[in-house]
């Protein structure tokens, strides 16, 4: 498109040129036919732009929506929120919790600092647009090998981007993960999550209502940044030969912070009929989706939208993903009140149009009509049932002979290697760049099994959040891997004494048009859905990111689970560090789990192998373990609790020792083996109990019908496992701490 063309000239393209523009913006021939058929006429260039963003995967979910229908969005155990832009549930009759995850993978790969920062900004807006104050943030970051200089560039930029944005707006970052795997080399993953709390009478809807009500635009001015961010950048694989940097948006957390305060104040006035943030697809998305949701239309004039550059074409204004902008429907007669309110926060708000009852989104550019589309049609892309096929690699990977894996020469050395490996070492270099104590509600920050915040309005009530991803196990078995992931997230919450309630899922996969990738997606979603049903969890929001591929191949399929649970009393929680010498160390759950080295960190780190068939998790066993651990934590019986996951029993013990700065004397119930030490069977937790209460614990565990074993006692400055290994806690800590700083710090 030539920038010097007048809007009118741009509309006078030939049908062939219009069709080409549609394809350039990512619409398919089939979709273009559907548009012609639905409208019964030739669309304008501006209208094509609007379809291209609304029908892309990021906004309309055409390729995932049918599969996502498997996920349970309600559960018997929670009262799920209805009608808000982000999903949530009623924590108390007066307080609602909202939560959502969103990916910013492609922008972060192109421009890590801004890509990650705007990912945080976007997810935070999704929270306060509902009238909820953002109270916690989390993120899941996945990169290629740490030894690759470009990975370090991405890690440095992404972490600084997440930190600078989240720190500036004053939201504590409590949960998250950082993981390295060669499959992410050309396509990193940045998933950001946020949690908000709102008094139920201040929750805002995103549905436009009331013909004649004014439509207001608030916040930053509109520029050319981010045009095509969702449809062009995030809807193709990398490596197709384009310079995509201009499609990345630029964040301004200072404006966001004022927007938070202005929007939350506005939510108390009763003047706001509906609110929605302009994320992907900006003005198009908000005007069309708010209209469609309310069964209404809108008439807006693009000339009234504040611009940061001149000469923008209508389609550019409509597609721009400039950050920190909100759209509001205001009760007629209160527009000046709202403009004054935003003015007090030194933010501009302007009327750009009004709600109509014809169901049509009419877009004017000054006096000229440049688009008139039925809102419902615009927001209802075709849904595809794509072909899928079991990936060829699975049979080969499952056939891997675990019994042929040699035992290490030294178990102690193997433990030191694992604890210092990129995926198991300390994340302090990362988490220290995130403010985790702002708002003065943080009971447990990052580094434990889950973050905990107090809910001040309902103290001593609190909520715990965890964000967990899985890639290797999902790669090796998409269905079971996804079930294991849900079980692990729930186990993390149980270990801090929380009862899991709601889930937000970030689904990161390869190109869905390739049947083996689509199989991974379908099976993983099925696994999440089944596990959530069994755990009685409602999946209240989520995000899909496809096309995570580079010339080196697809990423490992990577679902991310954000899970939130309720802590009845924040004074009764547990953390992972050993507390006192003499405490008994117990393993709750099964010991000796054959086959548990499949897909393990041990195999990957010590043998460079990603293979084996992951174990299946029995949700009923898992729930019994979680239930008894949660009860023991809440009653104060268990002072330490830590879930067994990557690295297995030995790594979990080492983490408890490092974090508690004290050792332990352990005797294994089975013969020492790599499997016993480093196997990753699910449904297992390490806990410590005061020596004089061990019989109480034994009785409780017996009643629960959960297998357990007394492993030994806390004490000394060595982690010793009888006849197997003896390593100083200082040495473990040194190996654990130095890995990331040694490659990242000057």
């Amino acid at each position, binding site marked *: 498109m030539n920038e010097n063309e007048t809007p009118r000239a741009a509309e006078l393209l030939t049908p062939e040129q219009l069709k080409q523009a549609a394809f350039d913006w990512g619409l398919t021939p089939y979709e273009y036919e559907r548009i012609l058929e639905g409208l019964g006429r030739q669309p304008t260039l501006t209208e094509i732009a609007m379809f291209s963003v609304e029908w892309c995967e990021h906004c309309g979910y055409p390729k995932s929506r049918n599969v996502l229908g498997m996920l349970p969005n309600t559960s018997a155990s929670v009262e799920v929120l209805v009608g808000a832009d982000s999903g949530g549930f009623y924590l108390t009759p007066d307080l609602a919790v909202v939560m959502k995850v969103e990916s910013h993978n492609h922008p972060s790969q192109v421009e890590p600092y801004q890509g990650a920062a705007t990912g945080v900004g976007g997810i935070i807006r999704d929270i306060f647009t509902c009238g909820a104050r953002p109270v916690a943030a989390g993120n899941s970051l996945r990169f290629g090998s740490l030894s690759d200089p470009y990975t370090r560039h991405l890690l440095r930029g992404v972490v600084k981007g997440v930190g600078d944005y989240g*720190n*500036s*707006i*004053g939201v504590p970052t409590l949960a998250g993960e950082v993981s390295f795997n060669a499959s992410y080399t050309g396509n990193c993953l940045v998933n950001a999550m946020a949690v908000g709390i709102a008094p139920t009478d201040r929750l805002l809807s995103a549905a436009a209502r009331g013909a004649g009500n004014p439509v207001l635009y608030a916040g930053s001015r509109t520029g050319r940044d981010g045009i095509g961010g969702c449809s062009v950048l995030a809807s193709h694989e990398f490596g197709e030969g384009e310079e995509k940097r201009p499609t990345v948006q630029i964040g301004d*957390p200072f404006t966001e912070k004022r927007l938070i305060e202005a929007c939350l104040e506005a939510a108390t006035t009763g003047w706001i009929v509906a609110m929605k943030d302009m994320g992907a697809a900006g003005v198009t998305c908000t005007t069309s989706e708010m209209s469609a949701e309310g069964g209404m239309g809108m008439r807006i004039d693009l000339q009234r939208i504040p611009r940061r550059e001149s000469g923008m074409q209508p389609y550019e204004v409509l597609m721009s993903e400039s950050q920190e902008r909100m759209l509001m429907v205001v009760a007629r007669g209160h527009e000046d009140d709202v403009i004054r309110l935003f003015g007090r926060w030194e933010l501009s708000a302007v009327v750009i149009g009004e709600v109509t009852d014809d169901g049509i989104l009419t877009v004017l550019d000054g006096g000229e009509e440049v688009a008139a589309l039925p809102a419902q049609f615009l927001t209802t892309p075709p849904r595809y049932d794509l072909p899928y096929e079991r990936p060829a690699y699975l049979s080969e990977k499952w056939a891997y002979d675990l019994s042929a894996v040699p035992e290490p020469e030294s178990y102690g050395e193997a433990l030191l290697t694992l604890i210092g490996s990129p995926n198991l070492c300390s994340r302090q270099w990362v988490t220290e*760049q995130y403010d*985790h*104590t702002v708002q*003065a509600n943080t009971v447990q920050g990052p580094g434990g099994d889950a973050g905990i915040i107090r809910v001040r309005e309902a103290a001593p009530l609190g909520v715990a959040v965890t964000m967990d991803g899985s890639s290797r196990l999902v790669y090796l078995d998409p269905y079971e891997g996804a079930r294991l992931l849900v079980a692990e997230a729930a186990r993390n919450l149980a270990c801090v004494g929380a009862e899991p309630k709601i889930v937000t899922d970030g689904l990161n996969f390869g190109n869905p048009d390739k049947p083996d990738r689509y199989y991974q997606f379908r099976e993983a979603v099925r696994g999440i859905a089944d596990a959530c049903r069994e755990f009685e969890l409602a999946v209240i929001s989520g995000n899909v990111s496809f096309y995570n591929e580079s010339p080196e191949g697809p990423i490992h399929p990577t679902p991310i689970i954000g899970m939130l649970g309720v802590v009845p009393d924040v004074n009764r929680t547990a953390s992972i560090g050993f507390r006192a010498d003499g405490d008994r160390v117990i393993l709750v759950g099964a010991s000796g789990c054959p086959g548990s080295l499949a897909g393990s960190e041990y195999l990957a780190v010590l043998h460079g192998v990603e293979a084996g068939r992951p174990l299946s998790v029995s949700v009923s066993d898992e729930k019994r373990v979680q239930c008894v651990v949660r009860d023991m934590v809440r009653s104060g019986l268990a002072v330490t609790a830590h879930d067994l996951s990557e690295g297995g029993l030995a790594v979990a013990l080492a983490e408890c020792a490092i974090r508690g700065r004290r050792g332990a004397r352990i005797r294994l119930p089975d013969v020492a083996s790599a499997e016993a030490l480093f196997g990753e069977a699910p449904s297992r937790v390490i806990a410590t109990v005061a020596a004089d209460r061990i019989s109480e614990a034994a009785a409780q565990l017996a009643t629960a019908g959960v297998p357990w074993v007394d492993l030994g006692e806390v004490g000394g400055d060595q982690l010793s496992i009888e006849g197997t290994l003896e390593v100083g806690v200082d040495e473990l800590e040194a190996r654990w701490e130095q890995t990331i700083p040694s490659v990242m*710090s000057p």
Partner: protein
Amino acid sequence: MSALPPLNWGVVVFPGTNCEIETVYVLKELLGQDARTVWHRETDLSEFDGLILAGGFAHGDYLRAGAVARFSPVMDSISRFAADGGAVVGICNGFQVLVEAGLLPGAMLHNRSRRFLSRWVNLRAEASSSPLLSGLTPGEVFRVPAAHGEGCFFADPDVLAEMTANGQIAFRYCGEDGAVTDTANPNGSLECIAGVTNAGGNVLALMPHPERAAEAVLGGDDGRRILESIIRGARPRLARAA
């Protein structure tokens, strides 16, 4: 110890400040004070016994932390409030603003790691002449959270010598045992300085956040003792008027 005097605090909020809610909460709900936020365009501070400049990123901290905030309308009133002997306390970003405004000596640089740093730190109370710190014993150690990107305190040698001689050093970063060492210094601050006062002792600022350490359930309540000392040492409005 006797009950805290019931004072009225103004918590100054610039666009971009982000610690005002918990600061007001701690003052009102935990310390029995009266408190409200003061928007940066307000100029009448006559109702207050003391002021706190809360943490955050005033005006986005875009040029340099606190550099734009000094031009906010409230700043002239804060200067007069301080000149009258009123207690003015800066926490984190508030410290940066007070330094930029010239109400405190020295300057604030980026952390030596060039990274934002969020971590619990130990502070040692120094032998200070400030009434705001008279409730603390020199050498006493406090564990409180710090969270900042520009917290490296700097001053010229002659300024530093004068501050030291006047008892204007309020807190230094230290180990758990109170030892002031470079390892305990999180941001490269000159002589591990974490908090300072003006010559009159009524303007105090520190980089770490005592308001985030006012309840045991949040990991410690050492910060509460610092805030209590400030409340006891502040000269109330009526005393200043007399």
